[in-house]
């Protein structure tokens, strides 16, 4: 359980809240690059960390992310005309460049310099991989660009999707490090999902449904190991990295692409669940990419034209009790992503953690909350840089490995848990 005060501390991410200030110290995934595909394409509304923003790509291919509303009369610039190096409000023609600087106020003489005094709040928007990243903090603390492996491998080796989740970011992220739910909620998917099935390691999951967990502090966050019995007294380990504040990876299966997530607050009651798949050393096959587009693995299907999942709270996630009875799904909800989201959304927009009853297998979650709390308090008190910001902390991989029974997994897999360009993921 958490006290109400700590629950508020960790779940409130507005600009005036401590956790909001901490989130603003990191580069955040803001849009898929495909949402702004061309110069002068239509602008896109973005809400991040409780701020309503507008994203656009100008005539020179520069990306802008700024206050959604015109400084003149408050019109949404989603109605704006994206033309000739700027976004023009259609109401009275005020025009802004990609930094948010007003560059034209047609009603005033150009030589008056009036428009120089008008500037919308703007944030950098940078393409790394197939994602547009933004940094919403102050210039003084702006970190190096994201160094995550999934967005720095060649384009043919990676695929990213995002979906709207109707819950606070923390309960979504906690699902990403809660390895003990996999044996139940997702138990149907190992056999059938094209992005999981066929891996040699799957047999250990099926033979030993009571994994034992070990949680290890790491400089950027945690490593959470789940071990199951393997041959000759050895253990099959599945190791999940969590990097602060909201990056998680799923341990790999065979030579399937490796996947993971970011959980990014839209506001305190909604978040973006970003899901990526990549292979460190080879291109994704057409079949793999198509499976991801079709919503298999950690991805999902959509209400057409939106990032809202096709299965959502308005249709009870297309609950199928017959499929559940037939043993095809454990919860009756199809697909790993929505199996998680349906339950996390059912907790309410911000789960009341004063009522929960955690057990020892929840230590990954307990430790993650502890690290977040410590980091945010240290940042507020002493200005300490939170973990996960420096590129070195981002150079992590998940691992699946069979190890001798007496080895600490973090020691035995020290190299495997680091990004090694040109070297395949460690997987069984």
């Amino acid at each position, binding site marked *: 359980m958490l006290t109400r005060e700590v629950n508020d501390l960790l779940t409130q991410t507005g600009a005036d809240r401590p956790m909001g200030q901490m989130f603003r110290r990191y580069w955040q995934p803001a849009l898929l690059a495909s949402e702004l595909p061309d110069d002068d394409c239509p602008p896109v509304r973005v809400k991040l960390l409780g701020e309503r923003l507008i994203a656009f790509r100008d005539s020179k291919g520069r990306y802008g992310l700024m206050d959604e509303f015109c400084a003149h009369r408050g019109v949404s610039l989603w109605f704006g005309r994206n033309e000739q190096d700027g976004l023009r409000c259609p109401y009275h023609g005020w025009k802004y460049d990609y930094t948010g600087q007003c560059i034209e106020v047609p009603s005033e003489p150009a030589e008056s310099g009036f428009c120089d005094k008008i500037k919308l709040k703007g944030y950098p928007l940078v393409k790394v991989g197939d994602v547009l990243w933004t940094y919403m903090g102050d210039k003084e603390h702006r970190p190096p660009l994201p160094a995550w492996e999934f967005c720095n491998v060649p384009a043919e080796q990676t695929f990213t999707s995002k979906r709207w989740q109707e819950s606070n970011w923390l309960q979504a992220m906690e699902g990403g490090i809660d390895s003990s739910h996999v044996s139940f909620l997702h138990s149907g998917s190992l056999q059938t999902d094209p992005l999981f099935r066929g891996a040699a390691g799957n047999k250990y999951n099926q033979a030993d449904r009571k994994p034992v967990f070990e949680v290890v*502090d790491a400089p950027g966050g945690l490593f959470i190991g789940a071990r199951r019995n393997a041959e000759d007294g050895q253990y099959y380990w599945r190791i999940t990295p969590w990097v602060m504040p909201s990056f998680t990876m799923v341990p790999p299966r065979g030579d399937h692409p490796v996947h993971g997530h970011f959980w990014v607050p839209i506001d305190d009651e909604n978040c973006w669940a970003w899901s990526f798949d990549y292979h460190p050393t080879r291109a994704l096959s057409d079949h793999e990419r198509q499976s991801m587009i079709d919503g298999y693995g950690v991805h999902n299907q959509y209400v057409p034209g939106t990032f809202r999942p096709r299965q959502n709270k308005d249709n009870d996630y297309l609950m199928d009790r017959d*499929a559940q009875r037939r043993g095809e799904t454990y919860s009756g909800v199809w697909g790993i992503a929505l199996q998680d989201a349906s339950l996390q959304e059912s907790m309410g927009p911000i789960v009341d953690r004063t009522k929960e009853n955690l*057990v*020892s297998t929840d230590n990954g979650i307990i430790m993650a909350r502890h690290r977040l709390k410590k980091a945010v308090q240290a940042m507020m008190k002493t200005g300490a840089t939170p973990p996960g910001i420096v590129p070195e902390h981002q150079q992590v991989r998940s691992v699946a490995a069979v190890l001798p029974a007496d080895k600490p997994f973090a020691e035995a897999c020290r190299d495997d848990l680091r990004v090694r360009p040109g070297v395949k993921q460690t997987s069984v």
Partner: protein
Amino acid sequence: MHDDDLEPHPEPQPTFARPTLLNSCARAATASEARFRVPYANSLPRVSSIIALDAASAAMMAAISEDPWKGARFLTLAQQPDISPNEVLLTGPDGAGLRLTDELATTDLVVMIATESRAEKQAETIGRLARGAAVMTAGIVVAGVDVEAVVQALRPNAAVLVIASDADYLPAMLTAMRA
């Protein structure tokens, strides 16, 4: 594998009649609906026994033992902890002697804390007897000089192991688990 190997998505259809009240569908997951969650307690108080396996762990434990815990009992190994392979002698905060088997009869969770591997034998006995008594176990290793040896000592004897970089984690974990 070819594209035509892909299994078609199932097309599940909702099997319920359309809900007539908000709280009869998943849309009830709103902040305003949360007002109607029942206010009654959902658990009974639990007892946690925290056992320090070495002097450094005992010092960490002593630093928090006066905090207002709900049902935590803080224990150390007695000077001569072994009287048989099926018993460990413990010492309570007031210096009184206790038997592990008596402690296990009234506790719900045993947390072992270690910074070194000296008490491997006692950890084995505690883990084995706790399992036999169906008591949950957890181990906290506060990273020190020889993590590998401490992990070896605790891993077989705790259902969950946490390797923490500092002592702060102990009170955080106990609070989270309502100790």
